[in-house]
């Protein structure tokens, strides 16, 4: 699963309340428009009653002028000036009822418009000025400005909230955690007082955990290293005892030769074990020189060939001349460790096979790939490069840790996956930004 940034988590947390707020604003605005719509007809009729008085007198002036007046024209211009749907002069429309009052609100006009009819004063013949206006729809009454303004305010609050919360989290949580991780390697340090309470408690628990881990680390180093040294020392001790038992003579000479062989074989292993234990606890320094990487790998493989032969493991390599800047001694150690692990893993397969190749990945860079057709990584995948994780019965679990340190000292990365081609494990050393 791809890691998600704090910013994205915050956005997701705020989106839901923002959506709720927006829905609430829309509901409120539409609700207000609906209420106004319900009242609009009454307001419109009241407005029309007022306007009808002005219109009636205006039209009366034209009617009184007889053939000199222009009531129809004036009615038309009043329609535009007073923003009405219609103004006309004549008899009272039928839908205005039988009422004898001077002004009547007409119900159920044919087009649904609000309509008022007012009798012109002074005239003996009843003449009415009838005016109508279109009632507004809910959409027309919707306060778009309020809606847009509210959405803008919500957006602004959302943005500001995210910004300030992001900053607060960064200041109060992320930076302290970064400090914590940096101080994790050192002794427990006093916690700054401005940290949140939870982080201060976390810091105390981490100090305790690191202390216990240090103790466990020491225990495991001691346990693993001592065990390995004991294993390598045992034949030397036995051979030396045997050599001391017999008096000087041919048998004793043979025993001494056995002691020498055991010593020659065992001491380097003891030294290597001690060196590896040492390397796991310190920074590894590399001396970089321009050399052929393929040659470095071949040197590593040459030393492992007897072991591979003994286990009947086939080693295939696809190596081309690739000159890069590297420490051939240290890198050879790392590659040897990876190759040795691969040989050991592959030896359990029916047709044991280990592949080594140099590849040029256009996206990531130069790669050394070591893969086998063994059982694969399985449960060991998590925490593979942590100290003391080993499949071997007597392993210190430091080999991959040291290999990773050597590779990282070369500004490269070491990763482990399942091999798609061989079905076992695949270790990949990637020199980012380096192309052959």
């Amino acid at each position: 699963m791809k890691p998600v940034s704090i910013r994205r988590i915050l956005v997701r947390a705020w989106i839901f309340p923002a959506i709720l707020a927006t829905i609430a604003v829309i509901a409120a605005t539409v609700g207000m428009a609906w209420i106004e719509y319900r009242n609009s007809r009454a307001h419109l009729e009241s407005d029309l009653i007022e306007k009808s008085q002005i219109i009636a007198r205006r039209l009366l002036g034209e009617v009184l002028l007889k053939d000199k007046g222009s009531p129809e024209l004036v009615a038309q211009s009043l329609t535009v000036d007073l923003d009405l749907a219609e103004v006309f002069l004549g008899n009272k429309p039928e839908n205005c009822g039988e009422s004898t009052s001077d002004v009547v609100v007409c119900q159920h006009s044919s087009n649904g418009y609000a309509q008022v009819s007012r009798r012109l004063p002074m005239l003996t013949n009843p003449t009415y000025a009838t005016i109508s206006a279109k009632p507004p729809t809910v959409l027309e009454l919707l306060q778009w400005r309020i809606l847009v303004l509210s959405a803008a305010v919500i957006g602004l609050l959302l943005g500001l909230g995210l910004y300030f919360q992001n900053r607060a989290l960064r200041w109060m949580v992320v930076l302290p955690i970064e400090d914590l991780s940096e101080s994790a390697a050192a002794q427990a340090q006093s916690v700054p007082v401005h940290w949140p309470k939870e982080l201060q408690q976390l810091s105390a628990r981490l100090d305790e955990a690191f202390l216990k881990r240090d103790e466990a680390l020491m225990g495991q180093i001691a346990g693993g290293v001592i065990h390995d040294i004991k294993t390598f020392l045992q034949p030397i001790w036995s051979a030396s005892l045997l050599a001391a038992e017999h008096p000087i003579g041919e048998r004793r000479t043979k025993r001494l030769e056995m002691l020498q062989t055991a010593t020659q074989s065992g001491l380097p292993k003891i030294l290597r074990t001690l060196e590896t234990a040492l390397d796991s606890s310190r920074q590894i320094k590399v001396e970089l020189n321009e050399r052929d990487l393929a040659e470095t790998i071949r040197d590593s493989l040459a030393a492992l060939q007897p072991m591979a032969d003994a286990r009947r493991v086939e080693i295939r390599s696809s190596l081309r001349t690739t000159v890069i800047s590297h420490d051939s001694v240290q890198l050879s150690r790392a590659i040897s460790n990876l190759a040795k692990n691969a040989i050991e893993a592959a030896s359990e397969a029916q047709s044991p096979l280990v592949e080594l190749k140099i590849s040029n990945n256009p996206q990531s860079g130069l790669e050394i790939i070591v893969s086998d057709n063994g059982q694969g990584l399985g449960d060991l995948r998590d925490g593979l490069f942590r100290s003391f994780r080993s499949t071997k019965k007597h392993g210190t679990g430091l080999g991959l840790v040291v290999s990773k340190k050597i590779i990282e000292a070369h500004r490269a990365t070491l990763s482990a996956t399942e091999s798609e081609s061989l079905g076992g494990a695949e270790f990949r050393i990637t020199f980012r930004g380096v192309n052959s």
Partner: protein
Amino acid sequence: MKHIYFLSAVTTWLCSANLLANADVNVAKSRQLTPVKIVFVEALAPRDTTSSERFRNDYTTAIEVAKNALEGRLSKCGYTFDLSTQFYDASDSVQAKELATKASKEGAWLLIGPRRSNHYLLFAQGSEKVPTVSLMASANDVSALGDIHLTLSPLNSEMARVAATEAKKKAGKAAGYVSIVSQDCVSCVDFEKNFDQSAKAIGLRPLGRIAVAGENLDPKTFVSQTLLLKPKFVLLPNYSKVSSSVMAELTKAGLRAFYVGSDGWGDSKFGFVQNGIDLVGAHGFTVRGYPSFEQGISRLPIKDLIQQNQNLPKSGPALGIIGALSSTTELICRNRPKNLSQFASVFATKGRSSFSARWGVSTFNMNDGNISFSHATKAKAKL
């Protein structure tokens, strides 16, 4: 003997005192002045409140100045002025009729009525027995109202004739013109009809006629059509608000023509044409029944009394008010009516000679929205 002389002296003194006292009463009785109730009725446009307020002040001041100038003459004749003024909303023309009816019932001898022709026609309807005079109504229909309803303005037939002649001088022979006329204005329609008759008689060519209504005109109704007809001049016999908005739109659209108006354009003091910001580039002329104030006042018999007054407003309506009151004073002093009925009778028979278009037809130029007096032409048509 001494007591006889004393008694005679006392008797003489008593008789003299009695005679003197009676003489005072007789003199007092003979100096009781007959009030001449005159009601002024005029419309104010409520939308343009600043201009309306100025107009109201000028109007009432003119009445006051005229009254003060004429009161002495009138009182020597045995009368006194009883003047009052009523203003009403110009958008409600029916009020003109209602106010006339009310003033008639309240015993007015004379009603001096609204300037607008359609208002005055209704005004006259409300005053069946009381004489009325309009300061400016010019529609030909006014002359058909009867002998007791008169106007100080030349009729549209005369004004249109003068306007057509002027237009021909400016535009040349056989010039074409377009008329844009407010159909809801009686005087405007009447002026246009008369102008067409006069124009045809002297060879001008009407190219088209566009009818408009109301005050808020949509330029689409007249701009493109007018531009298409390419007139030499545009006849705009409408009120000032409509005329100025039409001129502004046509000038903005690039029309190369001058404009001809009637007395609805206003003058250099009132109206929407004068100082119209959007009228830069617009040119033309208008005709009306009043000349410049200085010219007009010089023709009044009471000019010496009037000219000294610092407060006298210098506008066309002020001239009309002074002229109307002056003519009323003369009519009354010459004929000595005792009541309304006698006054109305005198007015009907002799009013036309007193209340006439004494100033003829005046032409005012309009340049970039500024109206200025050009010249006056004597009226040919008889009232």
